């Protein structure tokens, strides 16, 4: 019985220590404040791993992502603002490194295209509805048209009377 208890205790201890080992080292990073911790999380979520295809640096295990996380941590600890860190990264790795592209001549189409699309669609709807309204208006049958029609039928029925 005692041997079995020992075994159980050992197993429990092992599971516990394994759990601690498996815990990511990132979790052990110490911050001066909750705001800093939040900023670090935000930045590693929004910065893109320059070596990977569409992964942020928080998610990637590439060496470069690790180095960038370390750098972000250091900069945040040193009191850098969010913009400071992003500028630092963009200066070195280009706009590729940040998931929210800034408004530049090259990216303006990203903002304009949806707006243009909506405007174009509204225009199309307006033109179409206007035209169908015109059709209804001109489609009204007048007294004169009725008379003219009767005349023509008459002529057709009795061509010799002309």
């Amino acid at each position, binding site marked *: 019985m005692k041997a079995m208890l020992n075994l159980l205790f050992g197993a429990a201890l092992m599971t516990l220590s394994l759990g601690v080992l498996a815990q990511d080292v990132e979790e052990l990073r110490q911050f001066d404040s909750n705001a800093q911790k939040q900023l670090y999380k935000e930045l590693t979520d929004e910065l893109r791993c320059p070596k990977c*295809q569409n992964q942020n640096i928080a998610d990637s295990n590439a*060496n470069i992502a690790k*180095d960038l996380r370390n750098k972000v941590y250091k900069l945040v600890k040193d009191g850098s603002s969010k913009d400071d860190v992003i500028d630092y990264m*963009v200066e070195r790795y*280009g706009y590729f490194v940040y998931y929210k592209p800034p408004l530049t001549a090259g990216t303006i189409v990203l903002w304009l295209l949806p707006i243009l699309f909506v405007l174009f669609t509204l225009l199309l709807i307006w033109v179409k509805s206007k035209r169908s309204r015109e059709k209804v208006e001109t489609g009204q049958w007048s007294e004169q048209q009725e008379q003219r029609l009767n005349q023509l039928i008459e002529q057709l029925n009795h061509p010799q009377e002309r």
Partner: protein
Amino acid sequence: MSENKRNLWFFLLPLAIFLVLVVFLLLGLFSNPREHDSAQIEKKLPQFQLSDLMIDGKRWQREDLLGETFLLNVWGTWCVTCDQELPYLTELRNQGVKIVGLYYDQEIDPDFGESMDITALRAEVKDKLARLGNPYQFNILDDTREMLLDLGVTGAPETFLVDKHGVIKVHHLGDINPRVWRSKFARLYSELKAGQ
């Protein structure tokens, strides 16, 4: 506008949009997703203070590199692709191209107080360069990988073409082979050399 003309427009406009979309998607299909513009072009080399890989006590800084057009080649003995380019880089050196190595180790994490075994590392480097060719005038050791970050390096091998004023002209990701050298480096290199 006549009815006919209007119909033509309704036919042509979606066709035009479709064609633009096709061209855009085709370009995407044949582009290399790993290739994106480097932020380093036309920038000056960053300031640095680093040790020589092979010689004790020898320090390098930016000013030591100025005065001549050269290649800065980022590499490590752990990097498999670097092995592929060493023989061709050696050939380039024999043609008179100045190549400086920027060595880094990816396993060492200075934040955790790890440091490298420099004696073992030197032996390994010597062995590798003896087997595959030594293209380097000298090697700078970036032990903290700070210089790599400043240069926007994402891995190894990467190569920079730097002019005599220390301005980066080309930033190439991946190995250098005759094809890459011809298409990306050769012309610019000879122009910079001639202007020296």
